[in-house]
Structures are given as C-alpha cells and as structure tokens.
C-alpha cells in the first residue's frame, strides 16, 4: 500500500491545479478580453493591510492608481482612495465549466479594478488572462496527447498483433517520424497548413498537428507490449478455446498496455502543452485576443516589453507547477509499474 502513496499525492495535486484552471471564471476577477485603456502595462498592484496613517485594516485593500501626468506607463497610487478587497463578489458573467451561467467571483472590488498581477498593453487583467489562457493551453495539451495515444496504440496494436509486412511497414514509418527532430516536424506540418484562421480553427489545428507528430514512440512501446503478451500462455489458452481476435484484444491484450499508456500520457501531456505554447509564442498557434499561455508570452518578443514590464513573464512561471506535478506522476507511475528499475532510466532512453 505504501508504494501507492506518491501516486495519489501527485494525482491530487494535478486535480487541484486543473480544477483551478477549469473554474477559471470563478478564480479570475475579470473577463480576459475586457480592456481598460486607462491603465496599460500596470505593474502588479501592491496589497496593503496597514494604511498610510499607520492604521491596521482587517480587510486587505489597495490604493487606487492612475497614470502619472504626461506619462504613458508610469503609475502612482492615490493616497486617499482605497479599494478594499471583497471576497465572493458579483462580477462579470461567465459560464462555469462552459455550462453553468454564473457571476460569482472569488474576489474583486466594488469601486475600481484590482490587477493582482498587473495588466497588459490594453489594460487587460493579467491574472484573468493567465487563468483563462490555461484553459486553452491545457485543453490543447490534453486533447493532443489523447490523439497521439489513440493513434499510437492503434498503430502499435496493429503492428504487434498482425505482424508480418504490416508490422515491418508501420515500424519503418515510425522510424521516419522518430528521425525528425520533433520541433522541426511540428514546424513542417504547421508550415503547410493555413496561417490566417479563426481562434477556434487555430486551436483545432494545433491539437491535430501536435497530435499527429508524437505517435511514433507510444506506438513502438505498445507494439512491444502486444508482441510479448500475444505469446503468453493465458492468451494462447484463450485462443485455443476459440476466442475471436476482437475478444482477445479487448479482454486480454489491450488491458496489458494500460500501464505503458498511462506513463506515456503523464510524459506527453506537458510536452504537448509546451508544443502549443511554442507554436502560439511564434505566432503559429492560437491568435489574439483569445489568451493562451503561449501568446501571452509572445509580448516578450518586443524588446521594450522585455526591458520594462517584467510581469509579462509571469505566465511562463505558472506552467512550472503543472510540469512538476506531471513529472512526479510519471515517475510514480513508472516506479509503480517497475519498482526495481533504477530511477532516471526512463522510457526516453536512446534506442
């Protein structure tokens, strides 16, 4: 039982992280597209509990800010206008999990806007954009990884179970895909697809492109498992009793691949989130105004942003806990599957 514990711990961590992103509407104080041209590139607002007279406030508050005279990105606090932070307030309407119409937010303010993590060039709230951007990036990663695993297990099972020339042919193609550096392959595929598309189309495009790039490795792993299971005694016995191919695959062979597939999933999802980020960062993925972790970072390609507005880098840091949790999960799964394997010798070891 003790061996299961790290597994559950990482799963719970991932569940919480994804839960926050899935309920972005509740945790984000504002709509990610809502602009406020009066406060471009507002730095993260400072949270106070003690005011300028030295009085302690039970409720955290902010000082209202406005642009300094004659400046376009320098702000100053107004000493006499406080914006108290309120919890569970009514705010902009959104759909919880894309279904339930709702307008309750974790926090907000009644007289003014709070930009906890600052704002971008159009005064859009950075925190809200990061949270909503996570929905796009994570969903792209999850769907892409799902597609890849589906393709991979389809090809791997066919190759392993049918054998013969099909096996030979499919594995040669897989080798081709493995021979290409994956980022270049991603680019090559993306290069020949339409450039100017709507955000939804772009999202689907990213999912399909990333999904078709990575199938080769899971396919090889699944093939290996299927090849070895196919010859095991219980499968032969079942075949001797007259079990059909479909039944054998469904009942005996495919269940054996779950451990390989789940480990691969834990490895692939962050890679695919990163693929989406890379494409969007380079302007080949999900376009503005829809936020995604990749296109939030794209601002940093401008030198002036890089120099002056460090909070535009924050989206990059948000993905680190996600990747950490996925790595932990992958390690725990691997340990669970092969407890005696030396740590660090993972599936991506060179072949």
């Amino acid at each position, binding site marked *: 039982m003790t061996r299961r514990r790290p597994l559950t711990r990482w799963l719970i961590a991932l569940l919480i992280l994804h839960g926050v992103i899935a309920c972005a509407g509740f945790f984000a104080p504002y709509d990610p597209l809502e602009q406020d041209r009066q406060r471009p590139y507002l730095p993260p607002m400072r949270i106070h509990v003690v005011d300028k007279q030295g009085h302690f406030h039970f409720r955290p508050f902010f000082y209202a800010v406005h642009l300094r005279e004659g400046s376009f990105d320098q702000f100053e606090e107004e000493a006499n206008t406080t914006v108290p932070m309120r919890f569970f307030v009514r705010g902009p309407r959104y759909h919880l999990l894309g279904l339930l119409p709702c307008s309750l937010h974790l926090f907000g303010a009644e007289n003014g806007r709070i930009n906890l993590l600052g704002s971008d060039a159009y005064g859009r709230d950075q925190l809200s954009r990061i949270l909503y951007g996570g929905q796009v990036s994570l969903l792209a990663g999850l769907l892409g990884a799902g597609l890849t695993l589906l393709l991979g297990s389809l090809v791997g099972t066919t190759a392993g179970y049918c054998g013969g020339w099909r096996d030979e042919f499919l594995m*040669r193609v897989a*080798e*081709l895909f493995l*021979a*290409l*550096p*994956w*980022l*270049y*392959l991603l*680019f*090559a*595929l*993306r*290069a*020949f*697809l*339409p*450039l100017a598309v709507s955000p939804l189309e772009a999202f689907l495009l990213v999912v399909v492109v990333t999904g078709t790039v990575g199938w080769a490795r899971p396919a090889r792993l699944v093939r290996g498992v299927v090849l070895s299971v196919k010859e095991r005694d219980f499968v032969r016995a079942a075949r001797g009793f007259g079990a059909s191919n479909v039944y054998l695959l469904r009942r005996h062979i495919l269940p054996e691949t779950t451990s390989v597939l789940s480990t691969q999933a834990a490895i692939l999802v*962050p890679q695919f989130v*990163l693929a989406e*980020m*890379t494409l969007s*960062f*380079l*302007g*080949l993925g999900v376009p503005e105004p829809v936020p995604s972790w990749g296109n939030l*970072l794209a601002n*940093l*390609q401008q*030198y002036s942003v*890089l*120099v002056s507005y*460090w909070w535009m*880098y924050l989206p*990059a*840091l948000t*993905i*680190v806990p996600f*990747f*950490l949790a996925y*790595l932990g999960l992958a390690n725990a799964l691997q340990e669970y599957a092969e407890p005696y394997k*030396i*740590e*660090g*010798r*993972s599936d*991506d*070891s*060179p*072949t």
Partner: protein
Amino acid sequence: MRYLLRRMLHAVFLLFGVSILTFLFSTLAPGNYFDEMRLNPQIAPETVASLRAQYQLDRPLPVRYARWVNSVAHGQMGFSFAYNSPVGPLLWVRARNTLLLTLTATLLAWALALPLGIWSAASLGRLPDRALSWTTATLLVIPDLVLALGLLIMAVRSGWFPTGGMVSVGFESLSPLNKLRDIATHMTLPVVALVISALPMLVRHIRAALAEVLDAPFLRAAAGHGIPRRRLLYRYALRAAANPLISLLGFSLGTLVSGSLLVEVVMSWPGLGPLLLEAILARDLYVVIGGVLLSTIFLVGGNFLSDLLLLWADPRIRTEAGAE
C-alpha cells in the same frame, strides 16, 4: 566494414524517407507563395501562372520531387521565392551558425554532466546524490522557452551580455582576436540556455548507467586490490558504462538541434530557427523542406557518429560486425 556500410545505407534510406514525407506534407498546403500575388489586381493572372510555371509549381508531384532531388545533388536544394536565390547557400550560412551553437553546447553540457553524473552515482543515496537529483528534477521541469526568456530578461536587466544577434555593430573592423571574443560574448546566453536544458537529462542517464556498473563484481575486486577511487570511477567504471552513453551522445546532439530552434528565435541568433520561421510565414516552400531535411541530417549524422564511436569503443560490437 559491412556494419558501417549498413548503417550508412540505413541513414540514406532515412533521409530519402524524410524528404518524401515533407514533400507529401507540402501537397496538403492550401496556399503557396504566389497566392497573395493572385489577389493583387495589379498583377495579371497570366504573370502569376508564368511564375508558377517557371518554378514548376504547376507540375505533378513526382516530377517536382525528381527535379528537387536533382537540384539537391547540385547543392541547390530548390529555389527560395522570397530570397530569389537557390536554397542551398542560404541554408549553409545559417546551418553553420546553428552548428556552432549546438556543438559548443553539446561539448560543454557533456563536460559538466560527466563529473556530476559520476559523482552522483558514486554517492548513490547519500547527500550529494540526493541534492543533485533534486536539482536535475527542478531543471527538468523548466521548459526551454521559459528558461530562454528568463535568461534574456536577466541579461537585459543586468546588461552583462548582449541580447541578440551574433556580432556587434562594426564587427568587420575588429581584429581577428576581437572578432572571436565578440562572437563568444554573443554566444554565451544561447549556449547557457541550451546547456541548462540538456544537462538534467544527461546527468540522470549518466548516473543510471554508472550506478548499474558500480555494483559489478569486477569493480569490487578492483577496489579490493586498492586501486584509487578516482581511477576506478573514471577509468574502469566509465569504460564499462560507456555503451549507452555513446548512444546518448548522438541522441543529445539531435535534441539540442531541436532545442536550439526555439532558443535561436528567442535570442535572435541567426541560425536555422529564425530562417525557418520566416519561411513558414512567407510560405517559402523549399526553404522549409530544406531546413527540415538539414535538421534530420544533423540528427542522423549524430547517430551515425555515435555508431562509429561504439564500434571503436566496444570490441564486442567489432567482432560481431566482423563475424557477419
């Protein structure tokens, strides 16, 4: 010899496969470089058609492929519409810069990873090992993009390193030594990013490979004979653990080529990455195909190199290859 020949044939086969694959992708393309011209009312449709004919875009796929292979054989690799010149020379300049970056990074990463990995394996389970494992795990979860941008921000804020390009203004007038120094300072940031991104994986693999060997009876016997620990680790254990590491060398070169694509774009290093990105945005078909093919050549070349090294390092493989 036959072993080498077979590996070489395999590599050539792989390259042909990749080129056919990219050509097949390119037929999926809904648009090409001349589509925007067609929308322009000032350019007659006949002009566009004749341009297409000139670049043979109106021919069927097999013909285009044959033409292209022919031009690869002449070192041209097709024709760039945007630069109005053959792709080959265009790519070679960029590829040289990319290689400079990746080879330096590979060398540095290995020079750092070997002692660290060996140290970690030698103190398996004790403090240095655990500290290193934690560090590599942390570095492992920081993606290239985040790392490169973070380094860039640090560089911009501190002003220690130049933050873009490969040479300073007025490079031509510098003395050869200063030219070298100039390139080196410009290289620092991208190389650091690449080394940090490659390091954790290398350290982990080296640790695992060595930990497996360190338990072997012959090493315990050698230790019993009083051979000093350092010599034991670096001479005997490393030699025995070399095989998977040599394969890893070729592999790491390939991953660094892939990783450098992004780092180059972020740090505006004039390598293959920015060229490829421009070509994609401009629909410059043959540049994209050439870039992808070249990256595959690097990867396949890296693997071939490690095959050669394996043959040199492991007598078992030599005799096996000779026996065939």
